[in-house]
């Protein structure tokens, strides 16, 4: 029974197909207009049917006004952290502070290796991700406490060596680093160094109730690093279908969805619900019928004043 007390966010997870090329762009615009908080795209750089996620995020940034953007999740093994840090800060500046950085340690090692990436064991990949996050934060960190411009970044890690890489640019806002994680070791790492956690509900054993055990690993990692578990936002990729009758979790009318997501938010700590959808009507319905109802119910249960709807 956990609620970390974060404000609620609602987003979409859009397939970045490259045929037609504007498909994902158009849906992100729909989500932006509908008032959702986040538009996210998966990142599989070895998949030739998808648009490159970074290119898409940058393009979408110019087509949207308010919505925040993120990969879901960015494939670190094929994107060097120093490069990623610079790209992310650049895009954050270009978008007026609307970028978040959700990272993954990599999973499809055959495909990664085929692209010239190195094959890592799961343990190594977590280690590499932690090193990478450290490098990213250093590149973003342009000013010394005294206001002096900091010197180059030097890291001699097991997985990355950075020799005096130039710092900057500094992002427009404090970009959240979120981690897509399911296993204890990477969850503890998430608790230690990340700002958020972004798993997919479909992979969580035991459904929403299964989140509790995973949250506990993150909390333990945070504790061990002397951080508050509240420093880590808990997000969740979800799948669902609007239909007249209740056919199971997130298979039913909007009111049923709202009840179910409220329950997950209050009891399992999730404060960001990202719906996988490539359908404009579903995205709009989620934004207009589900998101406000969950916000209201959660505020009520938390004893907060009812939130002002973003629209």
């Amino acid at each position: 029974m956990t609620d970390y007390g974060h404000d609620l966010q609602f987003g979409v997870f859009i397939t970045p197909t490259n045929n037609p090329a504007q498909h994902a762009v158009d849906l992100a615009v729909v989500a932006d207009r509908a008032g959702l908080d986040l538009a996210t795209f998966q990142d599989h750089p070895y998949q030739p049917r998808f648009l490159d996620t970074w290119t898409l995020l940058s393009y979408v940034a110019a087509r949207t006004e308010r919505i925040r953007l993120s990969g879901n999740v960015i494939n670190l093994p094929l994107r060097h952290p120093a490069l990623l840090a610079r790209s992310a800060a650049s895009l954050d500046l270009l978008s007026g502070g609307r970028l978040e950085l959700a990272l993954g340690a990599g999973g499809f090692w055959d495909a990664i290796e085929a692209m010239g990436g190195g094959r890592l064991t799961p343990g190594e990949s977590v280690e590499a991700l932690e090193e990478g996050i450290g490098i990213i934060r250093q590149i973003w960190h342009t000013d010394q406490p005294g206001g002096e411009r900091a010197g180059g970044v030097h890291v001699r890690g097991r997985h990355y060596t950075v020799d005096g890489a130039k710092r900057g640019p500094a992002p427009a806002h404090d970009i959240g680093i979120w981690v897509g994680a399911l296993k204890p070791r990477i969850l503890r790492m998430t608790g230690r160094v990340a700002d958020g956690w972004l798993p997919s509900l479909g992979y969580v054993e035991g459904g929403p109730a299964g989140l509790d055990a995973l949250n506990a690993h993150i909390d333990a990692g945070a504790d061990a690093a002397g951080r508050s578990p509240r420093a880590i936002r808990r997000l969740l990729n979800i799948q669902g279908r609007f239909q007249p009758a209740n056919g199971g979790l997130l298979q039913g009318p909007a009111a049923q969805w709202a009840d179910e997501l409220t329950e997950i938010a209050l009891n399992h700590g999730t404060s960001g619900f990202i719906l996988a959808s490539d359908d404009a009507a579903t995205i709009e319905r989620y934004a207009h019928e589900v998101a406000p109802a969950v916000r209201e119910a959660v505020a009520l249960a938390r004893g907060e004043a009812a939130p002002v709807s973003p629209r």
Partner: protein
Amino acid sequence: MDNNYGHPLRFGLSLRSSAPAGMAERVALAEDLGYDLVSVPDAGELDAWSVASWLAAGTGRIILSPLVSLGEHNPAVLGRAAASLDLLSGGRLELGLTLDSDSDSDAAALGEAIDVIRGIWEGEARAALRYDGEHYQLHGAAGGPRPAHRVPIVVQGADASMMHLTGQRADGWLGAEPDGNAIVDAAARAAGRDPREIRRVLEIEQSDVPSTAWAAQLLPLVIGKGVGDILLRSADPAVIRRFITEVVPALRQAADLALPGLSTAAPVRPAAALARRVAGIDYDSIPLTLAAIEPGDHDYATVHSTYMRGGSPGLVLRPHTAEQVTDAVAFARRHHEVPLGIRSGGHGISGRSTNRDGIVIDVSALDEIEVLDTERRLVRIGPGARWGEVAAALEPYDWAISSGDYGGVGVGGLATAGGIGFLGRAHGLTIDHLRAVELVLADGSRVRASASENPDLFWAVRGAGPSFGIATAFEFEAAAVPGVGWAELVFDASDTAGFLEKWGATLEATPRDTTSFITLGGARPGEPLLARFSAMVDSDDPETIISRLQPFADIAPMYQQSVQVLSYARALMPAQGEANGGSGEPHSRSGLLEHVTPEFARAAAGLLGSGASYFFQIRSTGGAASDIDPDATAYAHRSAQFSVAAMGASAERLDRGWAALEPAFAGLYLSFDTATGPDRVAAAFPPRTLERLRALKAQYDPTTLFRDNFAIRPATAPATASGSTETRAAR
């Protein structure tokens, strides 16, 4: 042109990244003012790739040229990113590549990166790319996506190794060191390239000198150093404006005076592409008005093959008007000795609308659909339109033209051969609705044929059209078809012969408003043979529909059924997948049948049992198609009630199995048969019809220019006097 490389001048803005709003404004200004490109160096604070992608979304015309420092980029990822940006921007990317100035200038790594990037761009998704470089490796990565256009790679670098690399592999060089051209050119020649393949790009600082003086300063760079692209580095809107409105016109004028024709020069064809040209084709005489695609062109990948067949033509001509078709035919006439294919929708089975080392005239751009007369339901349709598009265009009128069953098939090939479709028994063949056709004949003349104009030709086109000319427009009379009953059932056809016989008998007893096709084949060992049954009832009345289908329900155990009322357009199978992804050669046989006799059914069951055919289909025809006098059109087998077609992986096995069916057939439908030779032509056209066709062929195409689809031999001896003159003239 010794010191110029023949590239028409282009002008760009070299952006220094700064505050986003300011950048967007300057780029919008540059686009408005007519700058050709914007170059985004990685040297600023912001990542060039993110900036260029972001700018792409806010612009519509200007070319985007991010200059990426290779650094930690994975080149395969960069290749996909570049293809993505090209797709998102509608083909506006030019990829700049360079090395970090403080790195050890490893040009070899950059060269490998270029190989990898181009490999990704060329690769088919199915291809497993392998690259074993010193710096970069691919171990079976998927290729693709293909960019929207051929993305040029511009290399920046001033030291000799980068100039070498540029000469070997790049499409542009941003550096323009005074003597660098010599190194670049030598490296290009050593690599078997033409130095003119490489565009020379120069970045200049803004200047305070008056505009004419500024232009005069720049002129020697153009005529002496061969600079083709000039990038202005400026953040000052006044300078940005003055440069393009005052300096550039003066410079262009002076450059055109010094180098006449520069502003209209066509880019030189890369040596590698020239090497892929075919010996028998005179590429230099292709009329300039004609869009032409040859091996080595970016678009070649999308035109060399068709839906059913792999090919590698030496030239694909794509006329956009009937007049241009005439030009294309004239060009083809001068090349009588190479294969000639005519292509509309690219779904030919019998029609060789692609070939090896030959010419293809592709009229897919002539795809207009226009309603001429709502009273008479007259519709004018270009050969490049697809039947799915035609059906969709007629849907709002509650009209339909009986076509084939598949939305992707082109109008040109089907409407010149017959057209056996789901409204066949109710409305007849597609050609039975044709009222007029416009053609370009072998001699290049443009004619109209109808019942009253060139009636002989009109007769011939309806069944043997591909032998007589290239249709450039059709006029059809559509039928009122407000809605149809559409059934898809799946039967157990384990008792194959019994099933076929019962289906045939049931069909013949069903009113002609109903047309049905059955498809069998491809059963896996151990699975029962299934028959997919489809039927269309030309009625939107549910009771009529059910009463027509009811008798079929009992012919065999049924696994699935779906019956609905919908528009003709919705009933057609939508075009799926790549229209031009064919490879290899299809093997298909056709036969026309009066009745599904027990003997035929047994023979067909034997063919299916042998596994020689993975696709076996019987279509009902007849009905309204049989009302037409066999002498009224070149398609003459009017008494046939069924059209049978079989496809097999091996031609020999298919032919062996098919031989047992032959005795039952009376003729064939040419569109479903891939075999060639006089006996097949004779099976397609009964003697009286063939005789008339041969006489007309002698009149309209005596040299047999059009011969890619059941070619008719002209009545006179093959080598007529005019034929040999023609051939000599082409030499």
